[in-house]
């Protein structure tokens, strides 16, 4: 069957912070660009980001991109690539100023400059401390302010959006070059090919693979699934971040900005326990450190409530003025989802699945790279990725708060620029291979014809249960081995999922089934990579290998869908211009 084909200079899949920033770069360069999003752009998950965007503006006191770089490398537990991290931290002030010029409503200081708050792991003096105020914010609605501003700027630039279009698969030719995507228009049910000389993924994370998650329903790792099916490996997927403060029972995030503004964590005896785990940084230690401390408190019986299964986040001592001015959204969320008004009472919180450090491997230009013929980082022509779906790798084994929003705009813009260069140097258009849509059509045909299968709901629940129980904050060898077996079983069930709804019009059952086929790839990659890595580093904590092991494991992992196998590649410990930061013990 031949599908309708439309041609563009570039296709961007995703319209969150990363996709919108990239699209803006391309539209303003006068290119014909199609931006696909499965939801209206401002409904992308970036809208939920709360605490801020990290950049060494130095508005509140001395700061420098070098300090930011040091903190990010230490935060990554030395797994981050230092060239990418230098690029991130040096570009950060420029892209934040640009956002301000685009109209983003940042909070202000009395002198009119952008207000910045402290955040976990961000320190002065190359990690020595004390904490630095580096997080530029719009109250606790920074992501909302950012994604709306970027969308507005794209309206100004006349960017062409394909809203409620679901990208289904990557189109590659025999040489491996990427030539666009297949996609489903939800309203009509039509499937077509969007052919492009360059394809940029900005599809966000895969947080819905866990039962308890701060992530939106739409965060199903679609870009990862599409890339994996097309033979691209996924990097460092075992490193999944659990945010210390999700609302107990609901999973809704309470920003680290609460602790940045002076909030603190307490156990059942009212003890500020972080003083024991991180004497220096206390509640503002790195997220992996705080989440582990909390899980330990709960495990050892010092949790609060009837089930002793949560801790308390106290902020009433900040006073109603500070709370209403700096954390109004948090007050709203606590009242709605925890039945607690933080002006008076502490919020019940637990570590909650939050952020995927790994993803589609790229360099700091946003070009997708894979090992090929002895070169660990050969560029895949025509393919780019940025944002949470990508692994540049700036977050390594653990991301610092505020560094994702920075990542979105720095690498969204850089990937846009890389596409512009590529299109200039490669003006010719390649023909689509005859089997361009085959994978997609096979998947759709299977789904339409499936009888006696299970529902998306059942299989999805099994996937989430498995990941939650077997691949959480603490990882145990027997649980991992069992989890591996179970997730492979779930993968087989995904291949037999059945939908009863066969309508053409806005068939959300079909959409959810296709999303599940992506989520399972992300979940498998995470479990297999976690089982394979025999050390503890950043967010990956194994009971049987309790230490970081630089001699054997200072390397990035790569999971290939084909054969369900692992490969590894070296970490880049050389920044672009700065002195390298060699690995050392990590304490806060």
């Amino acid at each position, binding site marked *: 069957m031949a599908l309708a084909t439309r041609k563009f200079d570039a296709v961007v899949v995703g319209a969150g912070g990363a996709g919108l920033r990239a699209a803006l770069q391309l539209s303003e360069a006068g290119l014909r660009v199609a931006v696909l999003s499965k939801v209206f752009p401002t409904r992308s998950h970036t809208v939920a980001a709360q605490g801020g965007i990290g950049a060494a503006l130095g508005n509140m006191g001395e700061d420098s991109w070098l300090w930011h770089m040091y903190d990010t490398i230490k935060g990554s537990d030395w797994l981050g690539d230092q060239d990418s991290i230098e690029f991130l931290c040096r570009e950060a002030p420029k892209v934040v100023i640009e956002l301000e010029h*685009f109209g983003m409503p940042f909070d202000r200081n009395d002198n009119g400059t952008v207000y910045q708050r402290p955040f976990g792991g961000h320190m002065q003096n190359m990690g020595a401390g004390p904490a630095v105020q580096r997080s530029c914010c719009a109250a606790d609605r920074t992501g909302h302010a950012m994604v709306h501003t970027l969308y507005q700027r794209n309206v100004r630039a006349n960017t062409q959006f394909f809203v409620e279009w679901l990208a289904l698969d990557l189109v590659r030719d025999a040489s491996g070059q990427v030539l666009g995507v297949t996609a489903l228009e939800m309203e009509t049910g039509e499937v077509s090919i969007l052919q492009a000389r360059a394809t940029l993924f900005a599809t966000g994370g895969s947080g819905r693979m866990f039962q308890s998650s701060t992530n*939106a329903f739409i965060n199903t790792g679609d870009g990862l699934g599409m890339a994996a099916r097309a033979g691209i490996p996924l990097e460092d997927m075992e490193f999944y971040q659990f945010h210390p403060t999700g609302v107990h029972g609901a999973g809704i995030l309470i920003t680290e900005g609460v602790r940045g503004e002076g909030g603190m964590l307490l156990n059942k005896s009212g003890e500020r326990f972080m003083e024991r785990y991180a004497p220096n940084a206390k509640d503002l230690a790195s997220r992996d450190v705080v989440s582990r401390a909390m899980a330990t408190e709960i495990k050892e019986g010092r949790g609060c409530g009837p089930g002793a299964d949560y801790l308390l986040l106290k902020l009433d001592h900040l006073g109603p003025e500070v709370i209403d001015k700096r954390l109004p959204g948090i007050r709203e969320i606590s009242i709605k989802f925890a039945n607690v008004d933080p002006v008076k009472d502490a919020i019940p919180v637990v570590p909650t699945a939050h952020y995927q450090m790994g993803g589609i491997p790229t360099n700091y230009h946003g070009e997708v790279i894979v090992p090929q013929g002895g070169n660990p980082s050969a560029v895949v022509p025509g393919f780019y990725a940025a944002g949470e779906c990508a692994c540049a790798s700036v977050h390594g084994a653990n991301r610092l708060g505020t560094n994702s929003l920075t990542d979105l705009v720095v690498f969204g813009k850089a990937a846009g620029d890389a596409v512009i260069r590529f299109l200039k140097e490669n003006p010719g258009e390649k023909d689509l291979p005859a089997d361009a849509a085959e994978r997609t059509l096979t998947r759709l045909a299977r789904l339409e014809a499936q009888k006696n299968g299970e529902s998306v709901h059942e299989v999805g629940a099994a996937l989430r249960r498995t990941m939650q129980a077997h691949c959480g904050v603490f990882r145990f060898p027997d649980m991992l081995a069992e989890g591996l077996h179970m997730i492979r079983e779930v993968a087989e069930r995904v291949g037999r999922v059945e939908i009863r709804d066969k309508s053409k019009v806005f068939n959300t059952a079909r959409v959810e089934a296709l999303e599940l086929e992506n989520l399972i790839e992300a979940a498998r990659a995470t479990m297999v990579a976690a089982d394979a890595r025999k050390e503890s580093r950043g967010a990956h904590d194994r009971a049987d290998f309790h230490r970081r092991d630089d001699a054997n494991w200072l390397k990035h992992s790569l999971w290939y869908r084909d054969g369900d196998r692992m490969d590894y590649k070296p970490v880049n410990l050389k920044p672009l211009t700065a002195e390298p930061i060699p690995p050392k013990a990590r304490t806060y």
Partner: protein
Amino acid sequence: MRISIYRYDPDQDARPYMKDYDVPVEPTDRMLLDLLVKVKALDDSFAFRRSCREGVCGSDAMNINGKNGLACITRIAELREPVELRPLPGLPVVRDLIVDMTQFFHQYHSIKPYLVNNDPSPELERLQSPADRAELDGLYECILCACCSTSCPSFWWNPDKFVGPAGLLNAYRFLADSRDQAANARLDDLEDPYRLFRCHTIMNCVDACPKNLNPTRAIGKIKEMMVRRTV
């Protein structure tokens, strides 16, 4: 709990109908959206939009027991039974609770929803005092859910010509920004019997906004600015 839902699939149904579902409410179910997810598990043909499940993305606006709101921040405990769910009024229905928002977004785009400042970009940020920044509070938080505009009779009758409360609130968001230089052009564009002046201060919009924003106040401010520039 019994939920009665407006169902219509143009691919299959001659006309819309209401369908009843009985779903068990467990202690962990807090919001209406939790129950809609259960309905979807019972009947995968039920179509609705949702994403953030915390009231920030604007996806799941619908008409709940006669009032527009977001399912994800509507408490189950506060709902009258049977719960009646319909698509947002006044917009064409695509399927079930999914409406075609084209006209709503068209009006949003029509107010030039972006900062206009033609001075050369300074090297650092444009300065803005905390007081000037505070002028944007209650405006920039709009999540474009359309609860307001689809509760406004003036928007129902003239969705092609009246900007509607959401669009006007956003227009004022830029008029109120000390960094914006297009105030006159923005006011010229709105000084029109339809675009702004179809608002008859019925206040439905204020009542409907799930983010507690006040479009009527913003509309009043725009009118004040118009008066001020003529004197």
